[in-house]
Each structure stands twice: as C-alpha cells, then as structure tokens.
C-alpha cells in the first residue's frame, strides 16, 4: 500500500467538505436511533428486564443506518473521486507512476478510516445515551460490538462499490442516483428474499438488523455472521480484482 498516496488523499479532502459529510453520517444516524427509542416509549420502560429500551435503540440504529448511510457514503465517495475526473488526476498521477487502481485503493483506505470511525461513533454514542438516560439492564456490549463491526463492514462494502462506480462513471449524478436506489433497497430489503439481499451491499443492512417488533414485542435477532464475513471476503476480493484491472487499463 502506498502510504504517500494515502496521505495525499487526506490532503485532497481539504475544502471538499468530506469531514462535514462524515460528521453528518456519525451524528444523524445516532440521533435517529435515539429518536426512535424516544418515539417507542423507551423512556417509560427503562427498567424493563427484557431490554425493551436497548432493543428500541438497536431497532432505531438499523433504521437510521439503512436510511442515511447509503446516500451519505455515496456522496462522500463521489466527492473524493469526482476531483480526479475534473482535475485530470487519473492521467496526471499515472504519469507520476501512481496508477488508477492504486489511487482507488488509497481513496478506500483514507475514506474507509473515516467511515469506520463514524460507524464506531454510532455504537459509542448510543450505548452512552442508553446508560445516561438510566436503562437499568446492563448494555449488551457483546451484541453492540458485533453489530457495529458488521455495520462497519457493510458501510465499507458500500464505500468500495461507490469508489469504483464513481471512478468508472464520470457523471456523478448517476452515482448519487445509484446511492438513492441503494437506500430503497436497504429500507425495503426485508421484503426481498434473503438470497437477493445477499447480492448487493445495501441488502446487508436489513439482513443484520438486531431488533424488530414481532407482534407488539421487540425481539433480538441473531447476527448472520457468515453472511457478513462473506461480504467482507467477497467484497474485498472483488474490489482488489477491479482495481487491479484499473491498474492495467490504458489511459
């Protein structure tokens, strides 16, 4: 991995408002989770022995992530890649020995660190919020850690997809449009068969939801570890394969 190229990607983020969009990603999803808990009456049932309040926070996070992450991750990737199209950056970097595939990988690492950090913030803020408002049962930290880990992998898979898409398609409106379609798939993915949800990165948001109502009662769901690990392995391999092809493509 080219450390200089990664440093350059951080330098290119200046004036692009990438930091603002990452902060929005971190805060808006966390706020949505809290709002969902508030609207579901979590404050009245803080001492529920069956984790009612925690379950509503989990449910809110699942909804918030599906609603907000696909579009904001698309915007973040698009802004960082579009500058290469408008600034003749692909060709200019290639003449300095940095191929388009290497540049995409550097973009993934630099943006990935920020997106993963924003996702981790969701967990910290929501668990902190739950503790602060006085939920009497202990925070299910193992479940939180696993879920946040899964969401990091899903967000990174969506990010990788959008970096490749934005690199290939110059018109960034198309890329943002695909992000919107991804948002609908993430929200309504539960309506599709599971095998179909496995085929697109946005399908993993509904697949990994940790809590939802069954009748009138919120219940925990098990995390589909194998599916998430599969996404990481297959997504990672595909990203390396496609960027490898970018490295060999002619200018």
């Amino acid at each position: 991995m080219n450390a200089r190229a990664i440093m350059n990607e951080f330098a290119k983020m200046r004036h692009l408002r990438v930091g603002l969009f990452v902060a929005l990603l971190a805060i808006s999803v966390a706020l949505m989770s809290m709002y969902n808990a508030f609207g579901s009456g979590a404050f009245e049932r803080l001492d529920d022995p069956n984790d009612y309040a925690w379950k509503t926070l989990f449910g809110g996070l699942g909804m918030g992530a599906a609603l907000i992450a696909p579009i904001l991750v698309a915007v973040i990737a698009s802004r960082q890649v579009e500058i290469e199209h408008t600034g003749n950056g692909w060709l200019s970097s290639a003449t300095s020995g940095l191929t388009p595939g290497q540049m995409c990988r550097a973009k993934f690492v630099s943006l990935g660190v920020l997106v993963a950090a924003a996702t981790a913030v969701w967990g910290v803020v929501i668990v902190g919020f739950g503790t602060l408002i006085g939920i009497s049962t202990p925070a299910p930290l193992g479940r939180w850690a696993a879920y946040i880990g899964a969401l990091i992998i899903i967000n990174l898979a969506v990010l990788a997809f959008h970096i490749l898409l934005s690199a290939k398609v110059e018109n960034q409106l198309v890329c943002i449009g695909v992000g919107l379609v991804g948002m609908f798939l993430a929200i309504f993915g539960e309506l599709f068969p599971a095998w179909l949800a496995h085929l697109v990165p946005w399908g993993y948001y509904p697949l990994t939801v940790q809590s939802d109502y069954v009748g009138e009662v919120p219940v925990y769901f098990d995390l589909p570890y194998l599916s998430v690990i599969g996404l990481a392995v297959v997504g990672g391999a595909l990203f390396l394969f496609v960027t490898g092809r970018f490295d060999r493509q002619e200018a």
Partner: protein
Amino acid sequence: MATIVATENLSKRYGKRTVVEDLNLYIPEGEIYGFLGPNGSGKSTTMKMLLSLVQPSSGGVEIMGKPMDRSTRREHLGRIGSLIESPPGYGHLTGRENMRIIQRLLGLNDQQIEFAIATVRMQGQMDKKVRNYSLGMKQRLGIAMALAREPKLLILDEPTNGLDPAGIEEMRELLRTLADGGVTVMVSSHLLGEIDKSATMLGILSQGRMIFQGTRDELFSAATPDVLIRCDDPSRASELLANSADSRVDQGEVRVTELSERATAGVIAALVSERIAIYEVRRDEQTLEQVFMGLTEGGGL
C-alpha cells in the same frame, strides 16, 4: 549526440483501426522536438506509448537507452515530466496545495518545488485556488508539476492549446529556457506556427505515419517548391509545357510544379528554342506552414 527517445516500428491498433503505424522516432538529447500533425493523426497516442500509459500493439520504446514498458515505467517516470491532454490540477485546492501533492507523491524536497514554480513564474499565484486560474496559468502549473522532479525529458501534449498569442509566446520562451537548462523537450501541436520557432527538430505525423523527421532546413529541402517563370508570353509558354510538365498561368507568370533542377533546365531550353523571351526564373518562396500543409494533405513525401 545521444538519443534520449527512440522507437522501433511502434504501432498501435484498436481492432482493425490503426492509429499509429511503424513509427521510428528518435529524439536527440537537449533538443526541442516539435511533434506535428493534424488532429487525430496519432500524436497523443504516440506520447502515451512513450510514457507506457498505452501499450503498443507492436514495436518498442527506448528511453535513455533502456526499454520503456510496464515493468520499467516507474523507474523511468521519475525522470520524465509530462503534460498530457488537459492541464492537471485540483480546482478546489490552491496551486501550492497541488504542488504539495506532487511533492509528497514523488518524495521531492522544497527546493525542487520552489525552483519549478519560479521557472514557470508562478510565485505570485500559488495561494489562489486552481479553479480561479486562467488556462495559461493552469498550463504553467501543469508544467511546474512536471518540472518539479527535475526531468531529463519533458513531454508536452499541445501545451499551447487555447492560449492567446501572448501565452503562446510565453510558452515558447519557457521551452527555450528549459532546453538551455539541458532538458530535452518533446512538444506536440497541430499548428506548425506555434512551435516551429522554438523547435530545433521536427517530426510530422499524418494518419499515424511519420512523413517527415529532421531539422527545419531538411524539411524545406524535402519539399520541392514550384518554379515560377516570368516571360513575354505566359499563355503560349504554359501551352508548350502542357505535355511535359504540370504548368499553369498564375498572376502573369508560368507556375510549374514538382520540377527538379535538371527538369528546370530542360523546360527553359524548350521555351527558349520556341523563341519565348525569359525574363526571370525562380523557386516560389514557401512558408514552413505551406510545406507542412503540403505534406499532411498529400499524405507524405
């Protein structure tokens, strides 16, 4: 003089379409090589092949005596500056921030950056965002980025495109300064007038084939200017020559094309024997532009 760039039967085909064909190009060290040809003649593709950004279909490239291909590209590119297609530069960053990106990527020191900026005379513009630059300033920033690595070879693809006359003259001056500093410059253009004053060697490409390569003087001598004959009866003289040469009356003179020195003597003798009074015989003065147009329209020498 050592050759810094040499190609051997360099060709590029996309499917059945041949873009560059059997190109044998050589650039002596320290020269300004003007690479000329109409739009679509294969100049940019050739330059990209020299930089190994496009893989040749056949033939090869040698830079500084070593093959240039994917395996050696990285090593070579540290010593080759280039400006291909539109000038580079991230519009949302300042000129200085753009230079820092090149500095970090290539591991250059501050002196190299400052020297490159000073060479293109952009010291006063480096804190402006590139999106607010004029085209000429963007071109100069692009050249500064290429120069910062202190290249032995600089490859510039149509650097005068879109520049006003003052910008073109500035670019010529810059090329001369660079050549004086020992940098070999290859510069392409579809307009001869833009680079013929600064180029010390010319290569002319037409439909992917090199139709001329040499000095300006060699280019003049390669094209045979028309013979103009001033005489007392141009119409009759032209009729007399109609069977043996391509002639016509042009502004009161007889214009005979494609006439060698020996043939010229024969034509004059024939006219004199027909009792036509010859007042003056001379070669038409051609501008380099006319020679260039003649070569590229005719498809070759």
